[in-house]
């Protein structure tokens, strides 16, 4: 029987084919600066956001052709803002709130290098970040806040995203409960799994993936989805 122990495993990893080792060695020789490393996820997000602004502009122009009422967007008190408040207030009820006037300040506060936000039509007025020791939570807060500030239309898309991801009421409720129940100080494997399966998926992929889904759906259907989601959150 091939019984395995960790030392044998370590030795076998030492015999990984050289072409794969050489490739990683090449990466090691050219390490990105801490600056580049840390802002990469935000850059990726901003690229997506910039694309969304273009798509949303096209959508808005299309909406203007429709009868009055059909293309209304939500106001500042949008659902996404409530989601952000709900989630991060709950998670950080004791640690309070920090408010920043620019994205630069907000990013710097969690260790990102200062950066500009040049590709968007306007500089956001205020970014609110609910403080936490958990970097995943902080990054999530920034991303959601940025999404909120960049465009109300993006907010609309984001709501559809969240709703679509959890079409079943029970699943949606469980997902939110799971998010709320996560203890930022818990570093157990089960939490790591949860972060991989839920948080990173939501933060990095869902927005884009489901936005595309939203864009492909009919506007009437999308508005219905958003309304239901808003009722769920606000109307209880």
């Amino acid at each position, binding site marked *: *029987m*091939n*019984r*395995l*122990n*960790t*030392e*044998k*495993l*370590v*030795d*076998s*990893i*030492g*015999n*990984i*084919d*050289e072409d*794969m*080792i*050489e*490739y*990683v*060695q090449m*990466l*090691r020789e*050219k*390490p*990105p600066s*801490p600056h*580049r*490393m*840390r802002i*990469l*996820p935000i850059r990726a997000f901003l690229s997506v956001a910039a694309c969304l602004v273009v798509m949303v502009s096209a959508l808005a122009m299309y909406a203007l052709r429709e009868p009055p009422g059909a293309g209304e967007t939500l106001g500042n008190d949008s659902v996404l803002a409530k989601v952000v408040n709900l989630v991060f207030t709950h998670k950080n009820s004791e640690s309070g709130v920090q408010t920043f006037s620019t994205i630069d300040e907000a990013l710097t506060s969690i260790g990102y290098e200062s950066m500009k936000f040049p590709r968007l039509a306007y500089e956001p007025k205020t970014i609110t970040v609910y403080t936490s020791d958990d*970097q*995943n939570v902080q*990054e999530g807060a920034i991303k959601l806040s940025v999404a909120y500030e960049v465009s109300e239309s993006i907010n609309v898309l984001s709501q559809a995203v969240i709703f679509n991801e959890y079409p079943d009421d029970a699943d949606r409720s469980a997902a939110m409960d799971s998010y709320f129940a996560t203890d930022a100080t818990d570093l157990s*494997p089960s939490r*790591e*799994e949860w*972060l*991989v399966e839920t948080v*990173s998926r939501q933060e990095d992929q869902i927005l884009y993936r489901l936005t595309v889904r939203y864009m492909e759906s009919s506007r009437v259907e999308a508005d219905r989805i958003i309304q239901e989601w808003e009722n769920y959150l606000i109307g209880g």
Partner: protein
Amino acid sequence: MTDAEIVALYWERSENAITITKSKYQEYLMKISYNVLANTQDTEECVNDTYLAAWNSMPEQRPSVLATYLGKIVRQISIDKYRKRKSIKRYVSEYAYSFEELDDIFSDGNTPEQILDEKELDDAINRFVRGLPEKERNLFIGRYYFFDSLKQVAGYNGMSEAKAKSILFRTRKKLKEYLRKEGFTV
């Protein structure tokens, strides 16, 4: 000087081979060894042993990429030293952390009746690593071949430390499952 020219010096039995190797790869080899041992004096010994091992293995061997060839030697020499000294004193090194991460997943099968086909395991590990998505593969090799810290592997893979940690956790679990399917008892 190119690797081929340095290797040629080894084949000619020119002592310049070691001098030039040292000037070109000393830092690289020290890093790998230090990741295992976390002790400068032991690291220097291992790197010197590596030069000697390279000297003794060439001719016969004619490596095309000297860095990889020497890196493999210094990795094994350093691990051997770690194992030899582990009972005397405990090293707090990246290797120790990497080992613990793997040890959490893989049970210790170090029993008298243990029979392990090492070639079979090498092949299985190679197939597994090659089949991983590129980012996962690079993280895995960075952490468990080079024993770089989580911060470092996350850095040269362009992601946050938390994300690298999560991906590595998933990869270890996948590896365990894969090896089970391949007939290993883990």
